[in-house]
């Protein structure tokens, strides 16, 4: 019985041990997400990629240039990890990238495939929770079939002539697929794998933006001199694109950049109408203008860039940024002839350009084309202007004219400023325009005095409305010139002396004032104030314990010397004296009597009684 109980216990123990062992050794697969990614010039995106839920905008990208694409990706553990999730032991990235072109042969497709460097399997360091990739994918540049040099991915290169239908980037999206493979498990020789994908594709917005990038590369390659002169064109941001309308010449694209082109055309038409009425004093009206050119995508101008020397600057066109309009010339003077060529001196075309200048706030205009159109472009918004209407004809046929001597009151109108009203003849004073300062604009009747008042500043006259201040130097000048009026600290000179001024203003001439220096005979250079420290000294005033003075003479005050004191002797009475000093020597030397040979020193007593009886006092020998 005992053995049986033991046997049962052992089996139960073994059973549970095995169960727990299995339970303890068998963890869950980790959950992984893409934490962040950035391809080429795209803005960085942070946050996990969720298949089917992450928006198109977040997965669209722009390359650096047509033959290279930088890629940075990081993968990490998802927040909601399962219980007992494994940690990764190793990982690798696999990246494929290509141009999505419909109907391409496999051979052609290869030409449009980016190649990223092969990624070896990476071991995961202990505690690592982030796994990243960073590298460049390259694409071999190749030319189109035309003999003229063009970049390949512009794709219009496939055709000898620009074809709006076929030469766009649309449908030719670049696509990158990032695959992350994570390895986990307890058996390193037979790890388990987990794979997640991140698909990145150029959507139309970025395909259109890619065209501007293509532009930059084409200009750099094919028009190097022009590129050096004018630089790169800018790549519009994503937010500048909107749904294409009738003002787009992009044809194959459904998006455009539209800087209020419809409003600008309306304002231009109003401006022409006003010009006709108030400048040319004609009765007919200009109701509308016919657009011949609006927004053009960048590839539209690639054709012009490559076609000949006359188009050297076409790649800079404002049409690419939705800021320009081309309209057909209208008969401004109503003479039945369109004066829009050299033969007719472009009279109507120039009238339209001047109308846009005077009344529609157009930035620049060009009107000397030979195909009968006028170009205008705006840096900002256009200005609305209404022609002042004449009084209706019924009033002219009034059967009851005003009594003699009375004058009909002038017609009162509300001016363009919407604030004032009055006679039509005063309308020009209430229209929008540039103030006298030339910097600010608005309704002329509302110009504050600072737009017309000039101040004589240090750097020249400027208008009071321009930011200005009186600087510490006392000058009044534009704030933009503040650097010119800065305070500068005077440097020390080579002798570490400070300038007496200390500091000066950069706008004022300044000569540093350092103390004068003397080259002394002692070999030192010193200031006047330091002269006494370098003068020749006649004697040294140092004394020793005996009160003797140092005997060194003719030395410079700046030079040290070893003090030399007189040698002293000690008399028979123990007194110290200087034998070189006669008085001391006389006082302390030992005298010997010439008769009795007694000795004495005067420092103690005078001559003693001589021992020779015949003599009185002793008499020293010498």
């Amino acid at each position: 019985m005992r053995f049986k109980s033991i046997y049962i216990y052992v089996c139960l123990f073994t059973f549970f041990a095995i169960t727990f062992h299995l339970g303890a050794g068998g963890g869950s697969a980790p959950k992984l997400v893409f934490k962040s990614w950035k391809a080429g010039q795209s803005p960085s995106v942070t946050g996990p990629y969720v298949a089917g839920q992450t928006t198109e905008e977040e997965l669209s990208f722009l390359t650096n240039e047509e033959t290279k694409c930088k890629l940075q990706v990081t993968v990490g553990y998802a927040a909601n990890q399962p219980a007992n999730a494994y940690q990764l032991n190793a990982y690798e990235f696999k990246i494929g990238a290509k141009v999505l072109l419909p109907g391409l042969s496999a051979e052609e497709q290869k030409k449009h495939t980016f190649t990223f460097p092969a990624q070896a399997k990476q071991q995961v360091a202990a505690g690592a929770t982030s796994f990243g990739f960073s590298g460049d994918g390259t694409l071999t540049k190749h030319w189109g079939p035309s003999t003229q040099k063009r970049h390949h991915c512009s794709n219009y290169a496939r055709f000898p002539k620009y074809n709006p239908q076929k030469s766009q980037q649309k449908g030719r999206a670049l696509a990158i697929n990032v695959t992350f493979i994570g390895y986990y498990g307890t058996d390193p020789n037979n790890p388990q794998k987990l794979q997640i994908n991140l698909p990145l594709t150029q959507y139309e917005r970025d395909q259109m933006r890619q065209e501007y990038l293509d532009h930059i590369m084409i200009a750099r390659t094919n028009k190097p001199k022009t590129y050096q002169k004018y630089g790169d064109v800018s790549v519009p941001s994503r937010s500048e694109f909107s749904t294409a309308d009738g003002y787009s010449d992009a044809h194959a694209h459904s998006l455009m950049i539209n800087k209020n082109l419809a409003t600008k055309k309306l304002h231009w038409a109003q401006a022409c109408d006003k010009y006709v009425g108030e400048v040319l004093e004609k009765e007919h009206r200009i109701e509308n203008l016919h657009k011949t050119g609006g927004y053009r995508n960048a590839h539209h101008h690639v054709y012009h860039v490559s076609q000949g020397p006359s188009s050297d600057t076409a790649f800079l066109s404002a049409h690419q940024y939705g800021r320009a309009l081309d309209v057909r010339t209208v008969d401004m003077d109503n003479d039945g002839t369109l004066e829009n060529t050299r033969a007719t001196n472009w009279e109507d075309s120039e009238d339209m350009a001047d109308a846009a200048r005077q009344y529609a706030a157009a930035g620049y205009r060009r009107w000397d084309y030979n195909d009968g159109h006028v170009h205008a472009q705006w840096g900002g918004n256009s200005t609305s202007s209404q022609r002042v209407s004449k009084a209706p004809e019924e009033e002219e046929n009034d059967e009851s004219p005003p009594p003699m001597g009375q004058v009909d009151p002038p017609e009162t109108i509300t001016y363009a400023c919407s604030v004032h009203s009055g006679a039509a003849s005063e309308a020009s004073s209430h229209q929008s325009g540039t103030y006298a300062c030339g910097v600010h604009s608005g309704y002329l009747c509302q110009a504050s005095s600072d737009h017309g008042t000039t101040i004589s500043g240090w750097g020249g006259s400027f208008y009071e409305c321009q930011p200005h201040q009186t600087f510490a130097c006392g000058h009044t000048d534009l704030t933009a010139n503040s650097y010119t009026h800065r305070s500068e600290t005077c440097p020390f000179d080579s002798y570490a002396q400070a300038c007496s001024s200390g500091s000066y203003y950069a706008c004022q001439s300044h000569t540093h004032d350092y103390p004068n220096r003397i080259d002394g005979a002692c070999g030192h250079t010193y200031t006047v104030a330091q002269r006494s420290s370098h003068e020749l000294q006649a004697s040294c005033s140092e004394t020793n314990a005996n009160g003797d003075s140092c005997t060194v003479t003719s030395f410079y005050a700046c030079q040290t010397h070893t003090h030399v004191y007189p040698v002293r002797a000690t008399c028979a009475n123990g007194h110290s004296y200087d034998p070189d000093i006669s008085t001391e020597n006389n006082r302390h030397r030992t005298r010997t009597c010439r008769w009795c040979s007694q000795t004495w020193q005067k420092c103690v007593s005078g001559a003693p009684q001589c021992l020779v009886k015949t003599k009185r006092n002793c008499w020293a020998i010498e």
Partner: protein
Amino acid sequence: MKKQIYWGLAALILLIIGGVFLFVKNQAEIRQLEQEVAEADKLLQQHNAQQVRKEKGHFHDDGTFHEGEHNPFDTLTWKTPVVNMPENIKDPAVAAAWKRLEEISKNRHQWGNFSPRALELMDELTPLPELGSTEDGDCGEGIILFLDELAKLRDPRSAELLVSYQMDSGISGTPPDEALIAMGPAAVPALVARLHDNPEEKRLFTPFYLLPKIVAAHRSELGGIVEHIIIPKMEAIAASEATEENGTVWRNKRFASNALEEILQKPKGQ
């Protein structure tokens, strides 16, 4: 006796020879003296001429003469434009106005800052593009970039070039207009010069458009220029007979009338 005659003849011959010799020598000396006098006269005349010219100008190191003094702001690439005053001005007020215009032109630095970059841009923008030379797709973007940068610098030395672009090229811009207005009096010599273009051949919209705005802000600084130069010229053009309806003269009349209305601040026709 014969001996005396021979001796006498010999002496006579010697005297004659000596006399002739002295005569010829004197003549040579006289000629030489005359030549020296003539040269001295010539030098004196040249010197006098130079003295006179010095008062009117100066000589350069390379020997060339320059009438008048250099404007200290002239550079190798830019010279102060000459103000073409009409001849035989009898009215002293008009003469003073032209003098004032010339003074403004020579001292245009008072109304703006000179910038080395402006001279570079002016060089880049010269010569002007030929009218009608543009091709399809070219909106003058490259020129516009430089013109815009030049306009923003407001360098008064660029006034003539900016006015020229506005009037003589197929490209015109609002920034150049704003620059010319900002330059104020410094732009007036350039605009007045173009006001005197042939109104039958040249469209004068630019000076008629800009001068009233500059006059409104700088009337006191311009002095008699407004009353004695600008307004009379505008009135003359506004009163000219337009032989061709809707042509250049007809347009210039309209431009002049509008400008006068703005300057005189009274309706047209009054």
